[in-house]
């Protein structure tokens, strides 16, 4: 099993029990898409909030995803193969001024 550290910032913790930092276990060889599925199934408090997090099978626009402090686009997005002790950060883009 892989141990993955997950954090929800920018107010996203609201749909994950108001907890910002989580540690989850996923199977060896899992990719990012499988982690997302795991988060929806196990960490999301209310499945009605799924569309706050997911749109068309991937992370919805307006949520930034960082893999070890790097834009997930540089790491392969949904296809990224998870490594043990990865830090995955989700945060809302903010628009207020």
């Amino acid at each position, binding site marked *: 099993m892989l141990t993955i550290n997950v954090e929800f910032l920018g*107010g996203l913790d609201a749909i994950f029990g108001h907890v910002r930092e989580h540690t989850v276990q996923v199977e060896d060889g899992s990719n990012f898409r499988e982690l997302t599925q795991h988060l929806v199934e196990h960490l999301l408090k209310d499945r009605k909030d799924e569309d706050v997090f997911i749109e068309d099978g991937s992370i919805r626009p*307006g949520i930034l995803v960082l893999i070890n402090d790097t*834009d997930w686009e540089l790491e392969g997005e949904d296809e990224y193969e998870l490594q043990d002790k990865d830090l995955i950060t989700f945060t809302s883009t*903010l*628009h207020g*001024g």
Partner: protein
Amino acid sequence: EPSNGYPLSLDEYSRYGRQLIVPEFQGVQGQVNLKNSKVLVIGAGGLGCPALLYLCAAGVGKIGIVDNDYVDKSNLHRQVLHTTNRVGMLKCESARVYLENLNPNTEIETFPIRLDNDNVFEVMSGYEYVLDCTDTPQTRYLINDGAVLCGLTIVSGSGLKTEGQLSILNFQNQGPCYRCFYPNPPPPNSVTSCKDGGVIGPAIGMVGIMMAYEAIKLITGYYTMENFSPFLTIYSSYPKQSLRTFKMRGRSEKCAICNGTITRKAIESGEIDYQAFCGTIHYRVMD
């Protein structure tokens, strides 16, 4: 005015001496660059107020202020460039009153208008840098597209509640832009404004000052194509004040503005409809 071949006047040396002796500031050349720079600040609210204060104080030669809002009492807990006795005044004019006293060397141009497809190119012409201090996705996309087409580097800031975000976009017209980062807008019901979500004054103040500082680094020449790397910095204030910087993607070939799909003509004709792109904005109705 400078005289005897010196690049700055005695008055300027005495006003700016404390900053131009700091090595990272790039010395007298850094100050001369600031003096010759033209910076457009869009939004004179929670981000714009502190950004304007520090840009003007540092000696930016010309500052444009775009805002068609009027000072309201509910702004004053965070918009510290406005005052109780200027409630009801245009924010851009309220800002001008103070900034002209802070530093008479800075030329202030005010635009008491809402930025839109028809005026964005005219407003941006003549400016080299733009600070995006606005508060809706559609305005952020509009500023982005105008800046990419006009060749302005963008310092982009935002904040809400207790957090903020900071980026440099379209760096030297070669770095990634707002659309490169965010090709698709967020669903409109996921967007919260400061009006609805609230914001703590110093939280948005921190982001505003960081924006002024990034603009100063750009103008003084600290950033180069060699040392610049696309980034997004996140400020959080609870439980402790902290900053984290993430490494971000570069310019994207798929970006509709960077690859030329969106043209000036398409924006000016209204073919690019920012309201429609970002969805119906229910939260605007609550103004």
